[in-house]
């Protein structure tokens, strides 16, 4: 699983992840408070320009934005039809600007930096006794580690259907997938405990 992070050494890359996240929160608030289509169009352009300055190719920008295009256009059209063209344009540029600014933070922040921010943010929760901050990074690592194993298991179960001349059905695929995967939890948990990984301070 490849992250959407892009290697680089720009100002944005060097800014601390927490600062970028705070800035993104402020920017999104501002975008929601201002209803001027011209201003929002400018903001969307600025977000696009940011991608260009990071030397992200047009095809790569399109690849990153494609999942949002349809829903943004649909919502803008809906708004235009029911509330007038002006509001439709406002909605379009606002939603486009939001997606583009968020994408800039994603492209310039590594997974490790994000885990660092989350772990620090979890510290107050740890003091309240709700969770262990270090478990956050461990859990994220576990998920990334086991996704490919589960995909291979899914293929084995699907092939087992074909081998027996059965058509794969959702329930008959999903049930064995869940049971075999969750059964390995005992041994994985024992391995974590035996290595003393969570008992360490």
């Amino acid at each position, binding site marked *: 699983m490849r992250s959407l992070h892009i290697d680089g050494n720009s100002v944005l890359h060097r800014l601390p992840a927490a600062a970028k996240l705070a800035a993104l929160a402020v920017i999104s608030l501002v975008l929601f408070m201002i209803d001027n289509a011209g201003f929002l169009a400018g903001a969307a352009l600025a977000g696009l320009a940011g991608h260009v300055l990071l030397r992200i190719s047009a095809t790569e920008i399109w690849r990153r934005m494609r999942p949002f295009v349809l829903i943004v256009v649909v919502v803008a059209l809906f708004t235009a039809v029911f509330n007038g063209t002006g509001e439709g344009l406002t909605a379009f540029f606002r939603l486009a600007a939001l997606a583009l600014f968020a*994408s800039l933070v994603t492209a310039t922040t590594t997974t490790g930096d994000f885990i660092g921010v989350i772990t620090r943010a979890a510290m107050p929760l740890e003091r309240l006794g709700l969770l262990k901050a270090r478990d956050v990074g461990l859990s*994220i690592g576990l998920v990334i580690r086991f996704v490919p194993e589960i995909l291979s298991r899914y293929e084995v179960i699907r092939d087992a259907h074909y081998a027996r001349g059965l058509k*794969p059905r*959702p*329930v008959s695929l*999903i*049930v064995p997938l869940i049971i075999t995967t969750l059964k390995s939890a005992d041994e994985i948990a024992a391995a974590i405990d035996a290595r003393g990984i969570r008992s360490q301070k």
Partner: protein
Amino acid sequence: MATRDLVLSALFAAIIVALGLVPPIMLGFIPVPITAQSLGVMLAGVVLGAKRGTISVLLVLVLAAIGLPVLSGGRGGLAVFMAPTTGYLIGWVFAVLTTGYLSQLLVSHSQAGFVQTVNFFVAALFGGVIVLYVCGISYLALVTGLGFSKAFMGSLAFIPGDILKAVIAALAGRAVMVGYPLLPQRT
């Protein structure tokens, strides 16, 4: 939190991610392919219960937020949390919490199989469809300024597929409970 619970939550998060990566599953009786990821959210509730189910869904959202393409169609990054449909993603948390809580409340080992399946269906329908759509539609209505009735109209087309997913989640939840019971029992 016991290490086993942490691992179970992480493994289920990995199952939800994997369900977004496998090709859509075709159902025999309707010609529409089903993307299985939101089914995964219901399954987390019926299999793991409220606490561990919610943690597994939160983990998927954290992975998406930190830029990993873990959502169906390879989506990820902070942009998915700044889109008109973000309410559905946030709704996953309340959906799994509700589904898990209701599963623990309604289903017990002493019930007949059919009763268990029906109870799981009620839990998945209430959490994974009703609660989910309330979150998704409210967010869409408020954030885009569309208003509730139009936001509701725009979401209507997806509801039948999600009711079907609740049926699958109920059947699978009951089968997993027989094969490898993990759902915390009401005491």
